[in-house]
């Protein structure tokens, strides 16, 4: 064999050649450029257009940003500083307005000595959200809770919070961290109670009001417990009825009497003191918390077999979706006085929250209905075959899957709703975008400042909304159960 080879072939390679590097045009930066920026005439033109856009923006606005002033007390002082530092004809941004009006943008006209209360409410909001948002990752939870605890307590100290509330917050934070390490479900009662606590922290007033509102469901639970052994269905109805009747007729007077007997509470803050991001976040959080359950109920009613329920929800959803939010806000501010008994006058922020909630709920219902419709028919049939009743089937089989499908839609509804909170400016509330910036411009110091407040408010909205959309992507990945 080797002899024949030796005769016919002069050389036989018996080892592999080491792999050679690819040609210069097929690897590295050059290849990447050719592939992604200059892969043909159209592509090259697009690259040039893109570069021109970037160059245009940079050349027109970079000096403005680079010359920005962060420390001044008025626009004229700002301009003076720019003139002195950068010479005649230079222009620059005056972000000092954000620094100087920071409290106004964040808290509106909330009493300055009580700024610690919204701060505490915000910190506890994150604690309440953690078991819902990050139930699966201990690392994220640890980081979020630790940062929240440190930042909240530091801010509260800086804002002059009374020691008792500082201690309360510290205890809650420590408890939350403990619960998060041991058993996350211990935090859920706090999350359930939080909405009521938030209302009380922000608006203040007698502590008896929230206590008696809380007493409603407790009494309802007692009624249900007493009757549950004999007639389960009637027990549920009785529980709901007792709660509603207690809220409607008893809780108000009882809270007043209790307050007279044993005064207990914190300083009340009127709704017209709310403004800025405090207002936006309050309306946004309340709307998000309430529109999801309402949207689920509406979506289920629309899919219901019961004709009356179905048609009522169709009419409701289509009506709300057919009119602009502004008209609903006008209904809240101008027309509710017509629809309610004479002399009723309830809080404008509450009215706006209700309107924003039902507006978002109608959109939510359609998103969730899409999720319900996308579920294969077999899932419904399998639930029936297992002998589950309607609510068990919805709770255990249908809704978990339908909600998972509709996460992107649900979150974009939330984002839309949070952006729409700026529209409250048209019913006379101080949103951070228009009313607050107008108020800032109305002062002598900051007359004529346009771009900086808009950039600031826009950046905050962008951060919050972008974070929400990224979170929805994270959640989708986390809940992914099928193979991709």
């Amino acid at each position, binding site marked *: 064999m080797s002899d024949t080879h030796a005769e016919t072939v002069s050389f036989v390679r018996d080892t592999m050649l080491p792999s050679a590097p690819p040609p210069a045009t097929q690897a590295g930066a050059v290849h990447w450029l050719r592939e992604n920026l200059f892969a043909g005439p159209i592509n090259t033109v697009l690259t040039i257009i*893109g570069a021109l856009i970037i160059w245009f923006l940079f050349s027109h606005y970079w000096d403005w940003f680079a010359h920005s002033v962060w420390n001044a007390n008025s626009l004229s002082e700002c301009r003076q500083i720019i003139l002195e530092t950068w010479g005649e004809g230079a222009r620059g941004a005056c972000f000092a307005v954000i620094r100087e009006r920071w409290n106004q943008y964040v808290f509106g006209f909330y009493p300055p000595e009580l700024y610690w209360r919204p701060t505490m409410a915000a910190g506890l909001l994150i604690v309440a959200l953690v078991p819902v948002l990050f139930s699966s990752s201990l690392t994220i939870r640890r980081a979020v809770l630790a940062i929240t605890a440190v930042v909240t307590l530091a801010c509260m100290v800086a804002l002059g919070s009374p020691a008792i509330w500082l201690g309360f917050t510290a205890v809650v934070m420590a408890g939350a961290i403990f619960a998060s390490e041991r058993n996350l479900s211990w935090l859920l009662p706090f999350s359930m109670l939080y909405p009521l606590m938030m209302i009380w922290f922000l608006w203040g007033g007698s502590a008896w009001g929230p206590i008696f509102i809380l007493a409603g469901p407790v009494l309802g639970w007692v009624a249900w417990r007493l009757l549950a052994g004999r007639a389960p269905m009637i027990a549920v109805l009785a529980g709901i009825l007792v709660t509603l009747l207690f809220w409607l007729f008893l809780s108000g007077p009882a809270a007043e009497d209790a307050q007279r007997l044993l005064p207990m509470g914190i300083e009340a803050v009127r709704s017209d003191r709310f403004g800025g991001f405090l207002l936006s976040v309050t309306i946004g959080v309340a709307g998000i918390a309430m529109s999801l359950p309402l949207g689920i109920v509406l979506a289920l009613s629309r899919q219901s077999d019961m004709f009356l329920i179905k048609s009522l929800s169709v009419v409701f959803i289509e009506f709300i979706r057919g009119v602009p939010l502004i*008209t609903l806000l006008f209904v809240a501010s101008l*027309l509710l006085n*017509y629809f309610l008994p*004479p002399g009723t006058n309830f809080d404008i922020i509450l009215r706006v929250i209700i309107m924003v909630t039902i507006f978002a709920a109608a959109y939510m219902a359609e998103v969730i209905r899409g999720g319900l419709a996308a579920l294969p028919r077999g899932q419904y049939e399998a639930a029936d075959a297992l002998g589950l009743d309607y609510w068990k089937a919805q709770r255990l089989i249908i809704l978990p899957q339908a909600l998972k499908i509709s996460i992107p839609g649900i979150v974009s509804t939330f984002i839309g709703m949070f952006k729409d909170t700026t529209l409250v400016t*048209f019913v006379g509330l101080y949103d951070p*975008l228009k009313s607050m910036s107008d108020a800032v411009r109305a002062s002598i110091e900051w007359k004529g400042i346009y771009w900086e407040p808009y950039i600031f408010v826009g950046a905050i909205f962008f951060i919050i*909304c972008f974070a929400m959309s990224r979170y929805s992507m994270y959640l989708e990945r986390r809940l992914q159960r099928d193979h991709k």
Partner: protein
Amino acid sequence: MTDVSASAHASFRPSMLIYDRRYRSLTFQVIVFILVMAALWWLIGNTISNLNAMGKSFDFGFLFQRAGYDISGTPIPYTGNDSHLRATVVGLLNTLIVSILGCIAATILGVAVGVARLSKNWLFARLMTVYVEIFRNIPLLLWILVIYAVFTEILPAPNAYRGDDPAWSMILFDHVALTNRYTAIPTLGMDNDPGSLDLGARVTVNWATIAFVVALVGGWFVRRAINAHAQKVQDRTGVRPATLWKNLAVMILPSLFLIWYFGLHLLPPALKGFNFTGGLNITNSLVVLWLALTLYTAAFIAEIVRAGILAVSRGQSEAAFALGLRPKRTMNLVILPQALRVIIPPLISQYLNLTKNSSLAIAVGYMDLRGTLGGTTLNQTGRELEAIVLMMLIYLTLSLIISAGMNVFNSRVKLKER
């Protein structure tokens, strides 16, 4: 089992209203019906007693009273002496104008950006992503206010265009002038004006407009006939006759003829005295609102278009190429029909959103439906209930019409499954 059903048939007990699934839904619906009726009765009763207490009535007679306020920028003739009803119609037309212009521009921009985001060009795709994310995550109100500030604060007064060496010059070949109060654009002039058709109520339509509409609609029908004929020939012989030139001719030639016949030409605006005259001065509130709505909605449409194109799997176009279809036919026959099925429904809701968002005209003082009926008319007559109810009904009707029309279109492009 048989015993249970037999006993159920035999006797009816009240408890079955709750525990028997056959009756439970009925019971539940009756309860809900009673509750809804009670709530309505309570609301209407309250409204009636409140109206009585304020000495007001619920009637729409105010619509026929003299409005007494002026509107800047009216699509149909209107003066302060006209009725509130006419002011409402003017407002509605203004809403429609900005919505239709916005829908058209947002669709064009949105489709372009959506396709550009899928482009292989790294830089351009990233730029478009930045645009989409920025506009989607910041409230529309901010964009309206920012663009309004650009128009009022940065753009000059008309007299900046004056003189031999003006500070500002007109754009688009001296046809458009941007000023801080209005945008002056050219208007159409006719050498051979055919006069106008009077529709009554001081609304007139120029015969030339009617002629153009007839020419375009007629051309469209002829084009359909040509394509149907081509299809028939193709089915019979297997060879499709060339239709492109015929179609172009049918669509374009009649319009060219009309332009020649009426002597149509552009009249560019020119600075006379303190203002631009000769052209059309469009109030900046319309331009600002239109721009903001377009840029904002286009970001959403771009995402819809991108998702729609991505939803068609690669195998589809590969299969079409394997069958020997050329790229254009692959696009028309394979990709687009499937992508459109995904794109059209959310696109419709974007159009609806744009129409509803046009009510943000309040921020720039554009006199749309909310500005007239829900604004000045409401404040002057003090009829909040009637004005807001009527305004909501009009918006509702508009939404229902758009979604109905679009649903018809949707059912035509929808893929026909078994």
